[in-house]
Structure formats: structure tokens, C-alpha cells
């Protein structure tokens, strides 16, 4: 590798690692805050940081993300300001959706991160339509659509995969295969391995170790390149773990015995640390400073955001239509 290339790789990977640490730090902060009653609900992302950031590294800012409720690390790496995330979780008046959505339903149009819905996988046909636009308008942008392993059973997965293939669209389907759909292990979700499902649509399908940020990056990059070249969609089955519970409402002890402990050598933070250390890109001192910086950022941002007042009650009934209806106007008058 050339010097320049190496230094470029270094900065890329250190940025990735920093985002992983930041995401983990934020994740833990929110989980604690939820227990303290400062946040209503949350879907932890712990265990899926490396794959999300590996995928994000393959995109430009003009590419579109149609993500899901666990994509905080991806957002952070993409440059979505942390306050966008925390304000959403708090549902305060600075939240880009004005407190209308449950926590973990992020959106940031400025960074092309589409607003998240709860019914799983229903973003996939929509992402496919967005990819149609890129092709039709020759924007050279691609669409990254994310979803979980459980989501492959949905009608929407099937519709999106087939249509993306038939229309040969620039979309990458990234399955964040964390092994569980709430209490259902992926082996009971479906018998086939997820990457093999691509063949049913004549699509390219690959499996990657989602714990390996570099592998995920490389595979996604190739998929993105192919998509930009008009070679169509790819399904990436990024295998990782859900280290935490499904959500702050979930009690995994009811259905799960084996878990991946934080700090163990399967933890993506640890794995990434090792990789970067072995390449000589980081050392313990840098790790320490990245972590303590992350903690400070998270703590500060969180407290800042916590001070922001809630949205006006009337805002809960706006934006239903471009122009409100007489029915709603009447109803809101009665309510407020």
C-alpha cells in the first residue's frame, strides 16, 4: 500500500472506530436514561455498530438511506448531528418530527436519512421506488435500505426484492442479521440462509461478517459500485449479534440463554480495536482519549437536549395534510 493510501485508510478507519465508540457510548447513555424515566423507550443498537458503519463508509452524502429503528451508529458515522438523535428520542420541540414519533424513529432529510416507520420492512418497497428515481433521473446516487433478519419474512421484502431486480435498480438491501426477531431466533424465522434468498429474484446475494467493519465496508463498496454502474441491486446478509434486549420493554432472559458480553472478544468495539491496533492505526492512549471524548460529548449533548421544552400541543395535529381539513380544525379546537 502506498503511504497516501495508507494514511487515507487510517483516517477512514479511525473515523469509523470513533463513530463506533460514540454510538456505543450514546447507546448506553440512553438505556440508562430510559431506566431512570428520562426517555420513554429505546431499541439498543449494541452489537450492530461495525456492520452499520462499514456500510455507511461505502456511501457518499448524496446516497439515500432508508433505514430502520436500530441505525443510530450509521447515522452518527454519516454525520447526522447527535442532537438530531437525542432530540428525537426525547420528542422535544427541536426534534425534526416534533415529538410525533416514538423514540428510535429517526429522520434527517438533510443527510438523506429517511424517516423511520414501525411496521418492519415497509421501507423496502419505498426504497426501491426511491432507487427508481435515481435511475430515471440519472443521479448516480444509490439507495441503501436496511432491515433485520426477521423482516425477511414480510411481504414487503418479497415485493421489494423482486421489483428491484426486475427494474434493475441501484439499491442495496442490507440485512442487519442480529440473529433474533424479538424472541424468535433466525433459525425459526426461515430455514434458508438469508443471503441465499437473493437468488430467488435473480439478484446477487452475499454474506459478510458484520462484526468486521472492513469486510462489511468492502463488500458494500463493491455493491455500491455495481449499482452505480447500472448492474443492479445486491442483498447483503451482514451477520452480527443483538447484544442487548430487543428494546427497553423486552426481557430476553425469557427466551435467550447465550449472549455476547460487552468487552468480550466478539464485541464489535473490541474487534475493531484489535484490527486497528494490529494495523498500527490506534494505541491505548488514543482509544482512551476517543472514549473519554465520546463520553463527554454524549453527556453534554444529552443534558443540553434534556433542557429543550416539549413541542406546542397544537403541533401534534399539524402536517396531516398540506392544508388542514375542516374536520381536523374543528376537532383540534375542541381539544385545545
Amino acid at each position, binding site marked *: 500500500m502506498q503511504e497516501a493510501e495508507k494514511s487515507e485508510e487510517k483516517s477512514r478507519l479511525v473515523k469509523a472506530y470513533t463513530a463506533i465508540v460514540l454510538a456505543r457510548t450514546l447507546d448506553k447513555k440512553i438505556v440508562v436514561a430510559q431506566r431512570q424515566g428520562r426517555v420513554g423507550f429505546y431499541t439498543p443498537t449494541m452489537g450492530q455498530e461495525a456492520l452499520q458503519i462499514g456500510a455507511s463508509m461505502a456511501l457518499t452524502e448524496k446516497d439515500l438511506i432508508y433505514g430502520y429503528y436500530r441505525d443510530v451508529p450509521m447515522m452518527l458515522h454519516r454525520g447526522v448531528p447527535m442532537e438530531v438523535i437525542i432530540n428525537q428520542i426525547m420528542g422535544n420541540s427541536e426534534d425534526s418530527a416534533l415529538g410525533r414519533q416514538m423514540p428510535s424513529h429517526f429522520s434527517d432529510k438533510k443527510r438523506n436519512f429517511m424517516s423511520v416507520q414501525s411496521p418492519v420492512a415497509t421501507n423496502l418497497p*419505498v426504497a*426501491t421506488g426511491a432507487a427508481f428515481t435515481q435511475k430515471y433521473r440519472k443521479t448516480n446516487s444509490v439507495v441503501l435500505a436496511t432491515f433485520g433478519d426477521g423482516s425477511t419474512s414480510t411481504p414487503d421484502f418479497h*415485493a421489494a426484492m*423482486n421489483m428491484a431486480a426486475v427494474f434493475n435498480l441501484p439499491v442495496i438491501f442490507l440485512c442487519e442479521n442480529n440473529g433474533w426477531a424479538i424472541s424468535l431466533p433466525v433459525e425459526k424465522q426461515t430455514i434458508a440462509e438469508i443471503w441465499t434468498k437473493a437468488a430467488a429474484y435473480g439478484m446477487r446475494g452475499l454474506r459478510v461478517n458484520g462484526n468486521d467493519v472492513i469486510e462489511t465496508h468492502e463488500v458494500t463498496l463493491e455493491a455500491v459500485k455495481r449499482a452505480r454502474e447500472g448492474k443492479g441491486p445486491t442483498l447483503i446478509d451482514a451477520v452480527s449479534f443483538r447484544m442487548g434486549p430487543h428494546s427497553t420493554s423486552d426481557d430476553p432472559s425469557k427466551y435467550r440463554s447465550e449472549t455476547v458480553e460487552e468487552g468480550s472478544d466478539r464485541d464489535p468495539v473490541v474487534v475493531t480495536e484489535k484490527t486497528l491496533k494490529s494495523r498500527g492505526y490506534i494505541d491505548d492512549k488514543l482509544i482512551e482519549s476517543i472514549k473519554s471524548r465520546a463520553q463527554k460529548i454524549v453527556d453534554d449533548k444529552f443534558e443540553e437536549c434534556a433542557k429543550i421544552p416539549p413541542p406546542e400541543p397544537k403541533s401534534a395535529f399539524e402536517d396531516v395534510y398540506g392544508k388542514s381539513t375542516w374536520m381536523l380544525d374543528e376537532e383540534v379546537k375542541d381539544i385545545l
Partner: protein
Amino acid sequence: MTEMNMVQALNSALDLSMAADDSIILLGEDIGVDGGVFRVTEGLQKKYGPERVNDTPLVELGIVGMAIGMALTGLKPIAEIQFQDFIYTAMDQIINQAAKIRYRSAGQYTVPMVLRTPYGGGIKGGLYHSQSGETYFAHTAGLTVVSPSNPADAKGLLISSIGYGDPVIFLEPKRIYRTIKGEVKDGSYAIPLRKAAVVREGDDITAITYGSMVPTVRDAFEKNNVNGDIIDLRTLMPFDIETIVKSVEKTGRVLVVHEAPRTLGLGAEISAAIAERAMESLLGPILRVTGPDSPFPYRHEEYYLPNEKRIMKAVNKLSEYR
């Protein structure tokens, strides 16, 4: 002005709009080479190419989902659902995505999409080619529901619906696709949404209806010399309460006519809304002449559909109240 039927008028609306705006994209089953099973998109693929007139695989959920994605990214998609009866696998996309994206993103994202679909009975289509499911859409906040009753309205309302900014469910009364002809202006023109039309005026009774029932009610009124207002809603949701109340205050007698089943059909809301705001003007009960609460039968469809006899029975009953 050209005399045409509703299919031709809709085709003209699509053609003129597509010629003027390359962000308009059509998608649906059999709409391209075949021109649509009712021929509404006839000739458009040849004219605008397969990138703009897309034959899709057989998956309504995918058609609607893709249309939403197109709309979110700057296009103005118009999707055809071959029969309204087949739209239900796409209900989640319609209710949970299309109708809620503006709201849930606080206006960051909008869905200027039109879903065109033929609805209603009268073509011997039985249970699954005759449904009038407007309630499912009209009850869903965020959707705009439109249905024309004649060729000229069909053209002007479709033009207004295209790129409207909010998702529009455009219900085409297939029974009168070809049976009714009328003069239609040649160029592009818009008929505003959310405004009803009073298609016949009179003093004794207010008939509120839409779609294929407009000619049925008009024929009944004309034949029997009923001196009443006939309000053609045009936009079913949000419907034009002002025009309705104004008429009710004049006549004091109200009849709502639709093909859809009575229970929680649009007539229920119209009746409730009138009762809430014009109770004092009412001389008698608000009557509904509608399809019954059963699936739509094949052999005996003429019994399902509201007809002159049932309309006049209601008119006569209302005229007893003075």
C-alpha cells in the same frame, strides 16, 4: 371540445400531463403494452416509453410502495390498481406509509402520488370486481379521496390530483367508464379538489352522492320531477361540508346515495356531520340508499345497486315530512 367517454377523458388527462411534466411516471399491471385492462393508459407507453409507463410484476403492495418512494424523491407517480378489490395487500403501505409520512416527518417528506383504481359494480364482476371500498380510505387521515361522475370531471379532477402534494386515492366508477359520454375541453384544465358540484338544483330535498350514482340519482329526479338539489361530492374526503349544509338549510330533507355498504359507508359520516350542525333545519330523518352489508353478488347484482325504485321510495318517504 370533444365528445368522449370517461376512459378517453382520463387518458387525455394522463397524456396532457405527461407531455408537460417528465416527473410523471405511470406504473401498474398491464398498463403498458396492453394499455390497461380498461384501456385507460392506451397508447401511452408507445408515446412516452417504458421508463415512464411501467408494466410491473403482480404485486399491489410493491406498486404502491414503489410509487411512494418515487413521490418522496421528486417524481409524481400515478399507479393503477387493476381493480379496487385487489388493493388490500397494499393497505399497510397506504395507511402506514403514504398517509403518515408528511405527519411523521413534520413535513420534511411528502407523497404527491395518485392511486387510480376502478371501483364499484355494474359490470357483472361478482365479489371481487365490484367493491366500493371508499370507507377504508376516507377514514384514514392523510389521504384525499376523489371520484368523478362524468368524463369532463374525470379529466379535470385527475389533473388536479396529479402532484397534489398529498396522496390521492382516485376512484374511477367503472360502470360508467363507457356508458356515459360528454363534451370535454381539449386542453389541460383543473377542477379544484375539496369542492362539491351542485349538478341539479331544487328546493325540496338534498341528494348527496358521487361517482356512478350521480347519473342514477339524476335520472330518477328527472324522470319523477323531483324538485331537489343533487350534490356531486367529487372529493369524498375531505368532503365539502359548506355546500352540503347550505343545501340542507334550504331543503330540510336529506338523502345520501352510494353503492358502498351502508354500515360505515360515507353516508354514515355525512349523516352524522349534518346532524351535528344542521339539526334544527331538518324536517325529517336523514335517509341512506346504499348497497347492503353483504359481499357483492354476481348473478343478482342489479339488486345490490341502488336504483330508481329505491331512490324514489326514500324521496317519497322524506316528502311526508314537512
